[in-house]
């Protein structure tokens, strides 16, 4: 008739029902089409690259959880995301042993040492990518043309390089990225080719259209804050536009800047790492705009053709400061609080 035992709980007694796993699972889901397109473009080398980075990231996370006696966190999918993102930023023919090492560094130094999920200051995938940039400068800037006829049956030669050797680039396979062609030869790629992805580049950076669609899926499901990609792209567009107006002969169009290199992938899937970005709306706008601005400055004035990675890492570094100064205004306080 009436209950025998009474459960005591604290309010609220209802929950919206989302979970960390659900968010992370959806990010993985949104990345899969981009991965698929990459495999279609670059063949089994890209597939092997993704498998190796993902497995390394998951294994590294597991290892560090064991060592630090923390509960297993592999089921939250965040290490899978790091692995996939890392693969998508690397050249398709990147030697697998280098990829594995980069994945290990990304998780170990970028995440586990900070205390695991929720405590990392930087996007772990970009820590891995930055390591690759520093340790393997030649391999990380050797690009492949998409659509090689034997791509589904044969690995690209450099993929299977013996560990601790650096493969020599094979001219038959290599190609310059649109950003590299602009930087070093002053040539512009067709905007439409950039948009659809029929160009050389990192495994997952080439199709702006596909990245846009996958990002919009996450935004529609409210698993990504749209302000981040909007601010990054807006910041880059405005900065690049200003330079273009100053000297149209020297600088590329802002459209080229938006669609080339890793900016789209970075804006939608790298800068949007919740853990490493600010929490408030105004903070997100500032953070995104800063990344967009820095990307363009590094691209135009730096020694490398691409600057998204460093721009996002710098944005990550600025996040705690942004959060310190930009907080919501509490009801009834009449002023923005900064302390």
């Amino acid at each position, binding site marked *: *008739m*009436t*209950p*025998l*035992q*009474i*459960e*005591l*709980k*604290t*309010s*609220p*007694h*209802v*929950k*919206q*029902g*989302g*979970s*960390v796993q*659900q*968010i992370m699972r959806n990010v993985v889901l949104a990345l899969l089409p981009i991965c698929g397109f990459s495999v279609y473009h670059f063949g089994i080398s890209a597939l092997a690259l993704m498998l190796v980075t993902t497995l390394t990231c998951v294994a590294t996370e597991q290892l560090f959880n064991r060592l630090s006696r923390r509960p297993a966190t592999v089921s*939250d999918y965040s290490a899978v995301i790091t692995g996939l993102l890392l693969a998508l930023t690397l050249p398709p023919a990147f030697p697998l042993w280098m990829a594995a090492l980069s994945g290990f560094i990304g998780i170990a130094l970028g995440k586990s040492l900070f*205390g*695991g*999920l*929720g*405590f990392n200051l930087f996007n772990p995938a970009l820590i891995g990518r930055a390591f690759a940039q520093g340790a393997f400068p030649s391999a990380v800037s050797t690009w492949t043309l998409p659509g090689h006829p034997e791509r589904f049956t044969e690995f690209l030669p450099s993929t299977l390089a013996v560990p601790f050797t650096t493969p020599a680039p094979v001219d038959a396979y290599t190609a310059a990225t649109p950003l590299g062609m602009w930087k070093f030869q002053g040539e512009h790629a067709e905007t439409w080719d950039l948009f659809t992805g029929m160009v050389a580049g990192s495994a997952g950076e080439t199709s702006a259209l596909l990245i846009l669609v996958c990002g919009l899926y996450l935004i529609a499901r409210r698993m990504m*804050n749209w302000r981040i990609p909007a601010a990054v792209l807006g910041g880059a567009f405005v900065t690049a536009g200003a330079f273009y107006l100053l000297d149209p002969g020297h600088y590329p169009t802002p459209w080229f800047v938006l669609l080339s290199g890793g900016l789209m992938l970075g804006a939608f899937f790298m800068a949007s790492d*919740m*853990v490493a*970005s600010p*929490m*408030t*709306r105004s903070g*997100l706008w500032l953070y995104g705009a800063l990344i967009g601005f820095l990307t363009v400055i590094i691209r135009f004035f730096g020694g490398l053709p691409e600057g998204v990675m460093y721009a996002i890492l710098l944005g990550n570094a600025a996040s705690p400061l942004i*959060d310190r100064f930009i*907080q*919501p*205004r*509490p*009801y*009834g*306080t*009449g002023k923005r*609080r900064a*302390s």
Partner: protein
Amino acid sequence: MGMLSFLTGRTFPRGVHPPGLKEATRDQAIRRLPFAPRLVLPLAQHFGKPSRPVVKRHQEVVRGQVIAEADGFQSVPLHAPVTGVVEGIELMPTARGPKTEAILLRTLPGDSQAVRWSSPRDLSGLSREELIRAIQAAGLVGQGGAAFPTHLKYAVPEGHGVDTLVVNGCECEPYLTTDHRIMVEQAQEVLAGIRLALRAVGADQALIGVEDDKPDAIAALQAQIGPDDPIAVRKVKAKYPQGSEKMLIKALLKREVPSGGLPFQVGVVVNNAGTMAQLGRLLPLGEGLIERVITVAGPGVERPGNYRVPVGTPLRYLLEHVGFRGDDASHLILGGPMMGNTVSSLDVPVTKAVSGLVVLPQAQADAAPETIHPCIRCGRCVEACPVGLNPAELGRLAAKRRYETMQERFHLSDCFECGSCAYVCPANIPLVQYFRIAKALNRERLS
């Protein structure tokens, strides 16, 4: 917001949208339950000083008689909800946990239970002070849950002019429909109460805020407003916690009560629609508050609905009459599921300010995963907090036991524990509980 409010509807910034779950009760008329054989009447049912008993053990009392008087101006009297015999004054469990003194009243089974203690009167000649005294004598307290004595709200300190009486008909908690049914069925009494309250508080106008998911309540109220009444119904967006008084003031008047302050500081007094109905009914009759309407709902209830019950009815009796079909480990929530407390005993009675009893069976209550993840700083709580706090940062500080920083830099005391942050948190962090503990420890440190 602001200029765009004609598109979005009047509301406050942020907030959440829990499912309403009101279908089971909102279209059913209020019903009466039989009188319970024994009532439990805590002396501290209201905010302020407890009432002082004026009856003895074995004394016979009639329905409506004063059984405990107000202990000063910061208190209200308590009236006998049934004709019966005082069994004693004992420590009894309450919804909040600790036992408090309560008058136990055994109902006289053969009695007609007519109210025998009333003095109908003409209120037109009464001054503001006399009205406030009469409201106190009726034992009236806020019916929405806070149980703040109504007359205290009207006794606005010198130097503060109140221009607007805001009537709260939002009822934004899931499941609850008491105010909704009262506005539909007792619109006349609600309006009578508002007219009296306008006089008692000396305000120029009254605005009734009703969420846009209650069109029938809006129509019923509008039909009762006369051409000379300075009273208007204002539709507000159905959103949680629209029914919090500070949020409603923001939505209706664009004013913000200062942090730590009270509504009169911005010229407003807020009353619940149910309180207005009680006022409009009791004051002309000269009766005291002896019964109220309570929503009994949730998957663990066989006949959900709104029931008019005497104050002091034990939950056990209520559940037996509405049909309990939960399991052994059901959650019994007094109030709504966002802010209500689970009760510790079935001997806990319905008190003056209890608007709902929600029964969630174990399975339902535990549908959300129990694992607590680390905060992934997704910012959903920041987007949800109606007060504009940063719950994630507060939670992080609570985990580090930096309770003073929570107060000094992050406005902990402005949190009114609406639960929006914990409701949206994908990491399942019990933020509200963290904040309660932090506030309690801060209070202890200061005292």
